[in-house]
């Protein structure tokens, strides 16, 4: 135990030391550390600091103290809370734990006097958040919620900063988590981007006051549940969801999602401090709890955790979530009882005097209220004030307006804590608090009464158990909390636990509790496996310093630290406030010793192995003077907008910077819309088109108008030898009168202009030979074309239907139909185009297949149709010649069939040129001779246009390509 705290490094030194053992600085002016058990809070803000209280606490006192804690918060607004003078004193004791939340304390009125200071602190806290949320908080919002929100926001902030999920703190009750869900959202989702979380999620006083009534009716609780231990147990074993639903203070837990799952109810201030005093340490715990999705197992686990404390249950049977079992878990709070008596009997063992003030009456809601003190606004206020100073030195420089003493820089934050605690007093005044928490429901204590409770003057009205050292009891709670945490850790995988432990030094968010687990809780765990739990508990209670030595060291350290750090004026102020009414004390922004004890800094650095950081001594913020801590400025008070850039500026190597630049470049390129240069569409040359049309039309029209039939000389024998038209001529010449000839009109009407001219002379030749013509077509328009052909070109022959020719009509099925017709023409086309019997004519009676025709003439403009006839029909013919009249475009394709041997194609006439040759051969000018001149003129004109246009376009294309190339080079 150190007696003197070094003013420089804050480390404890023995009284006889003139220089600090740690930093070597003189200890002149150093504060004398209070003995263990006296907390800073006791010195400053409570009248009840009782250093004389024995270290060995009475078990009964502990239980009663706990119950008093619970009942005070629970029983607000309930008849049982009517304070007797005794209860007033007790509540003054509890103020240490529930400084701001205890509404029934008489100090409330005095705390209201300190409202300006509190408001200042609150505004300071608001300023802190306003830096990131420029929207100012609504002035009309209830004060109690704002600090709560702020603290939860701060927690969220810290959580985000630490990015370490919280670990459940089983020692904390769950109920407080629930009552302010609206407050959760802005912080959980985006605590710093929300324009004004205070506006966004205001928890109206009506909501807050209604919720407990709706969700939990304390009057419904039967009187037998007034059994505090039983209530505690039932609360502890209550499923978290239920507990949360009943808890008006749930926002604390929601903000720190993984927080308490256990039902143990440490002092309220402990819990709040546990949340806010450990911005660095809490997150790892919460993460563990957040990994526990199922709530029921958590309750079981929490019950099971404490089962080892129960001699009946330890290591034997699973802990049932009944109040009985839970009550047994709380036996550790009463070593004398826990070993021998069931937990339910604990209340019975209490003297009525001790619990008279705790008697909530039939309306008391012990399970719920037992946790409420944990989230007392005072505790919050403390934390908020404490954390408020983390935002930066500027904010911490604001002196409390009422301080008349010269301020020391290292105690500014304490001032703020104090002011924040005062601001938290507004919570009590605010109507947004549930009625059952309302101070007004309680008879206001006389101001004189708290004044009688001087620190050095143990009041006879105070029960003896309340004279226990607060820190002792709080340490006890902390131990239990550690125990609970340890028991929870098995729920998490060992790997994750290991990782959490390993990560803690890296993140700098060490958790003293968690760190303590391996050393202390492991032993407890081992002991819990054996039926000697009670022995352990007894040993633990009797020799807490031994069982939790690291913790004790930490607590001592901080108690001493804060005691020594306190300036005189602060001490005087605290002594004044101690003399104030009880409610004043409750609302003070004190930082309880147990809260300070929960600070993980000293032990965490030791445990986390950050030996290299031990030389570092925090000289700023609430951790000022504490060695081996990570610098708070690096994580808190940083502008979030700059956080993303700072590491890049400070930590990046050249390679990293290059990668960052590359990434930036990639991202910036992604944002840029890249235009795809498509080739410019080729514009149509309308002028050329119109020019071609006009020139062709004009030239052919003039030629037709002034056209005379060109007298042509018949070609010589040498010229016609081996030609296709000569072969066709020969084939027709072989035909005799009346022989059936099949003519296929397989062309489109569009080609009639060419093919009618080309076929006219050939058909005329056939008619001259007196053959019986049969028309067929694989085109739907073919039959009509045939009729139109006969009518337009062969009208002079006077061919009549069914007499000299037959129109068989349309042959569907294209090649397949043609093949079928080749095999069996009578079956495929039984009727003629006009519906008459197609095969009744004498020339066709003997026709049973296509080979029975004397000749086949195909008129087509389609090379494919010509090929079909050659390949599908020509191969089926025996002696019947297959001839054709085709468009000029088909000639190159059918020419090989004529040139080959044997000849699938016996002869053909191609286009107007072939027809002209045929006419010359037959010496009977026909249509081809009539249009010969316009046709040739048209060809010449076309050649000229193509040549000129082609050259022009070629030159333009060359220039265009060159221009494009030049443009590309320029770019």
């Amino acid at each position: 135990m150190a007696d003197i705290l070094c003013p420089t490094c804050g480390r404890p030194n023995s009284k006889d030391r003139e220089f600090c053992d740690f930093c070597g600085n003189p200890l002149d002016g150093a504060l004398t550390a209070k003995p263990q058990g006296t907390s800073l809070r006791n010195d400053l803000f409570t009248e009840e600091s009782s250093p004389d209280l024995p270290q060995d606490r009475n078990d009964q006192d502990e239980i009663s103290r706990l119950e008093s804690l619970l009942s005070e918060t629970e029983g607000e607004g309930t008849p049982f809370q009517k304070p007797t003078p005794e209860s007033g004193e007790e509540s003054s004791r509890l103020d240490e734990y529930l400084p701001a939340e205890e509404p029934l304390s008489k100090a409330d009125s005095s705390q209201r006097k300190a409202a300006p200071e509190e408001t200042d602190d609150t505004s300071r806290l608001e300023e802190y958040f306003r830096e990131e949320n420029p929207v100012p908080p609504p002035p009309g919002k209830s004060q109690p919620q704002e600090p709560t929100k702020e603290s939860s926001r701060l927690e969220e902030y810290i959580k985000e900063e630490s990015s370490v999920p919280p670990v459940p703190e089983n020692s904390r009750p769950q109920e407080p988590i629930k009552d302010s869900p609206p407050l959760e959202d802005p912080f959980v989702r985006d605590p710093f981007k929300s324009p004004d979380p205070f506006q966004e999620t205001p928890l109206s006083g009506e909501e807050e006051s209604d919720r407990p009534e709706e969700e939990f009716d304390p009057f419904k609780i039967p009187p037998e549940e007034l059994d505090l231990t039983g209530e505690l147990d039932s609360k502890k074993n209550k499923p978290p969801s239920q507990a949360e639903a009943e808890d008006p203070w749930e926002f604390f837990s929601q903000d720190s999602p993984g927080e308490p799952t256990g039902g143990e109810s440490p002092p309220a201030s402990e819990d709040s401090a546990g949340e806010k005093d450990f911005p660095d340490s809490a997150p790892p715990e919460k993460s563990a709890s957040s990994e526990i999705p199922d709530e029921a197992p958590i309750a079981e686990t929490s019950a099971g955790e404490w089962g080892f404390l129960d001699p009946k249950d330890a290591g034997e049977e699973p802990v049932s979530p009944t109040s009985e079992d839970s009550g047994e878990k709380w036996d550790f709070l009463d070593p004398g009882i826990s070993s021998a008596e069931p937990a339910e009997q604990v209340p019975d063992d209490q003297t009525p005097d001790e619990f008279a003030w705790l008697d909530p009456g039939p309306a008391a809601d012990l399970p719920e209220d037992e946790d409420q003190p944990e989230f007392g606004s005072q505790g919050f206020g403390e934390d908020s004030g404490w954390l408020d100073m983390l935002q930066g030195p500027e904010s911490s420089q604001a002196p409390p307006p009422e301080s008349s003493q010269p301020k020391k820089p290292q105690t500014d934050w304490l001032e703020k804590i104090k002011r924040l605690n005062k601001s938290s007093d507004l919570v009590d005044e605010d109507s947004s608090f549930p009625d059952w928490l309302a101070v007004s429901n309680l008879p206001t204590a006389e101001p004189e009464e708290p004044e009688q409770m001087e620190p050095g003057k143990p009041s006879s009205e105070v029960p003896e158990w309340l004279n226990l050292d607060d820190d002792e009891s709080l340490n006890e709670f902390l131990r239990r909390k550690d125990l609970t945490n340890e028991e929870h850790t098995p729920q998490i995988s060992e790997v994750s636990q290991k990782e959490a432990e390993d990560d803690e030094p890296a993140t700098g968010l060490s958790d003293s509790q968690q760190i303590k687990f391996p050393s202390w809780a492991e032993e407890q765990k081992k002991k819990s496996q054996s039926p000697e739990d009670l022995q352990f508990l007894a040993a633990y209670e009797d020799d807490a310093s031994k069982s939790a030595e690291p913790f004790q060291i930490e607590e001592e350290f901080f108690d001493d630290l804060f005691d020594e750090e306190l300036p005189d004026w602060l001490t005087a102020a605290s002594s004044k406030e101690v003399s104030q009414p009880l409610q004043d004390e409750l609302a003070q922004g004190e930082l309880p010793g147990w809260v300070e004890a929960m600070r993980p800094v000293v032990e965490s650095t030791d445990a986390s192995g950050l030996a290299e950081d031990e030389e570092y001594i925090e000289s700023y913020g609430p951790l000022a003077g504490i060695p081996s801590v990570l610098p708070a400025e690096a994580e808190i008070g940083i502008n979030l907008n700059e956080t993303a850039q700072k590491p890049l500026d400070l930590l990046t190597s050249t390679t990293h910077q290059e990668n960052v630049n590359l990434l930036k470049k990639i991202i910036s390129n992604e944002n840029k819309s890249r235009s795809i240069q498509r080739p410019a569409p080729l514009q149509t040359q309308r002028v050329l088109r119109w020019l071609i049309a006009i020139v062709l039309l004009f030239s052919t029209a003039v030629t037709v108008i002034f056209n005379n039939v060109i007298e042509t000389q018949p070609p010589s024998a040498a010229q016609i030898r081996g030609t296709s038209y000569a072969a066709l001529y020969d084939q027709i010449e072989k035909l005799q009168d009346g022989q059936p000839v099949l003519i296929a009109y397989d062309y489109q009407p569009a080609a009639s202009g060419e093919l009618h001219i080309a076929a006219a002379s050939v058909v005329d030749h056939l008619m001259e030979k007196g053959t019986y013509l049969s028309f067929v077509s694989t085109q739907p328009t073919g039959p009509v074309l045939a009729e139109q052909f006969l009518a337009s070109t062969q009208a002079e022959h006077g061919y009549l239907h069914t007499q000299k020719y037959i129109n068989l009509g349309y042959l569907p099925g294209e090649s397949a139909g043609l093949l079928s017709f080749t095999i069996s023409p009578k079956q495929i086309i039984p009727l003629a185009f006009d519906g008459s019997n197609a095969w009744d004519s004498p020339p066709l009676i003997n026709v049973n297949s296509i080979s029975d025709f004397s000749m086949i003439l195909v008129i087509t403009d389609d090379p494919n149709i010509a090929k079909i006839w050659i390949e599908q029909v020509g191969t089926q013919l025996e002696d019947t010649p297959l001839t054709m009249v085709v468009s000029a475009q088909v000639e190159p394709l059918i020419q090989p069939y004529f040139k080959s041997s044997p000849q699938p194609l016996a002869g053909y006439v191609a286009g107007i040129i072939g027809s002209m040759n045929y006419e010359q051969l037959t010496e009977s000018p026909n249509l081809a001779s009539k249009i010969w001149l316009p046709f040739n003129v048209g060809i010449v004109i076309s050649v000229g246009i193509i040549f000129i246009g082609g050259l022009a376009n070629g030159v333009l294309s060359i220039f265009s390509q060159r221009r494009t190339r030049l443009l590309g080079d320029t770019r």
Partner: protein
Amino acid sequence: MSATGFTGIVVIVLFVGLIVFFSIIHKDRKHIPIRPIPAYQKIIEEINVAVEDGTQLHISLGRGGIIGPESAAGLAGLSLLKQVIEKSSICDHPPVASTGNPVLSILAQDTIRSTSKAISVAEQLRHPSGELIGVTPFSYAAGTLTIIRDEKVSANVHTGWFGNEIIWLTTAGERQSSPTIAGTAQLPAQAIIYASASDPLIGEELYAGGAYLGAGKVHEASISAQDVMRWIIIFLILGSALLNLFGINTFLEEILAGSM
């Protein structure tokens, strides 16, 4: 069995064997190396452009039926239509198809419906395009012009059986400043396409659309089989020329005569 029939059976069996063989060979290969055909690359580009611009592709399948030599061109067009629909399924407007043959029209609508159903494009299921535009070449061409001139059509793909009327379709696309990818089995129309279309498909390129648009391994294997058969035909032509040069041409003449 005639020599032509025997030759035909040999060719068919050889083709099937080659396709199966190359399908097995290419089974584990992602892509076989095939020469790039700019027209199919253009189709893929235009599909992407249609996706970006919210336009649609027009696919005209020609006027060939399914019974006859022209059927292959129509079926190749249907295969390409299927691939384009699958690849442009995320387009705001699905591809529009047009045909000039009633049977092909039914098949086109069936292809559109089944493909759209497979890729869950509901609009095509309700009103599949592929209607019969006209039964004659120029009526079909004239009716297709209204589709080409539609502002929503960003590119035109003409694959199927076309005649001279293809010049109408290609010049209409040029007037609309929209790319035209065209291919047909008719030789005169191929000459017209070469002169007028921005991206022509010449010869057998028309039938290779499936391999270039990712229709499957069999399509790629059929390309390889075609190449093998092409080399076989080349050697046969050279051999027959040599045989003819030396006066030993009886065998080929008998095959050409259809008797053996």
